[in-house]
């Protein structure tokens, strides 16, 4: 019983460690790679053509979420032709760099938009 609890605890520790180690994107490279994002995500108040809604704010977004979202556009779990095409053009390393850079843009103090 104690042994199995220890095993579970060790595994949990490993998972936590693995997930931290996994976020290995380089924000400096990401800063160069977000150039193509800027066309739509860089214009405050910019809206999609159809249906009309604002292109989301992504600067400051959480790192692993950006990685997951781009992979979901790649796999087709998310539908949006522009983003499907963008994500398909990115390598896993580029995705990690972009996520590292975007998440690094979060301000220290929360702010009202």
């Amino acid at each position, binding site marked *: 019983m104690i042994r199995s609890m220890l095993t579970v605890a060790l595994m949990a520790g490993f998972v936590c460690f693995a997930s931290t180690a996994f*976020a290995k994107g380089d924000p400096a490279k990401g*800063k*160069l790679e*977000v*150039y193509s*994002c*800027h066309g739509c*995500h*860089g*214009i*405050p*108040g*910019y809206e999609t053509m159809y*249906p*009309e*809604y*604002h*292109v*989301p*704010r*992504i*600067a*400051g*977004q*959480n*790192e*692993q*979420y950006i990685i*997951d*979202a781009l992979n*979901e556009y790649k796999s087709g*779990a*998310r*539908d*949006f032709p522009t983003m499907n095409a963008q994500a398909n053009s990115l390598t896993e390393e580029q995705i990690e760099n972009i996520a590292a850079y*975007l*998440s690094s*843009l*979060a*301000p220290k103090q*929360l*702010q*009202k*938009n």
Partner: protein
Amino acid sequence: MQQRTIIVSLLAAALVLGFGTASAKGNAAAGKTKAAACEACHGTDGNGIAPNYPALAGQYQDYLVEVLHEYQAGGRGHSSPAIRRRLNAIMNGMAAPLSDQDIEDLAAYFSSLPGKLSDLHGKVNGGD
């Protein structure tokens, strides 16, 4: 003449303001009362409790509305290309029971919170 211009301007301004409020259908105060389930992952401040959960605080309201509808559609198993959907085991389940009004209210609430999100302008290399 000048007075007439002023009156017309005031009327036009009132009209614009009227439309502005009318298009924001959500009620942030009502959304706050419906947000408990969201807060388990997205945090009581709406900024996400871990890096795999997105920050919602300060996100565009209409984007949040769109996305919740897409998660609903994903959970209903739509496969028509005419229907926009997102597949996500957690969010398909969370969005399923929401009414259109719930979605509007939740989006109004989370978009009103102070957060860390911004547009990307001025943050690319050599960009403006």
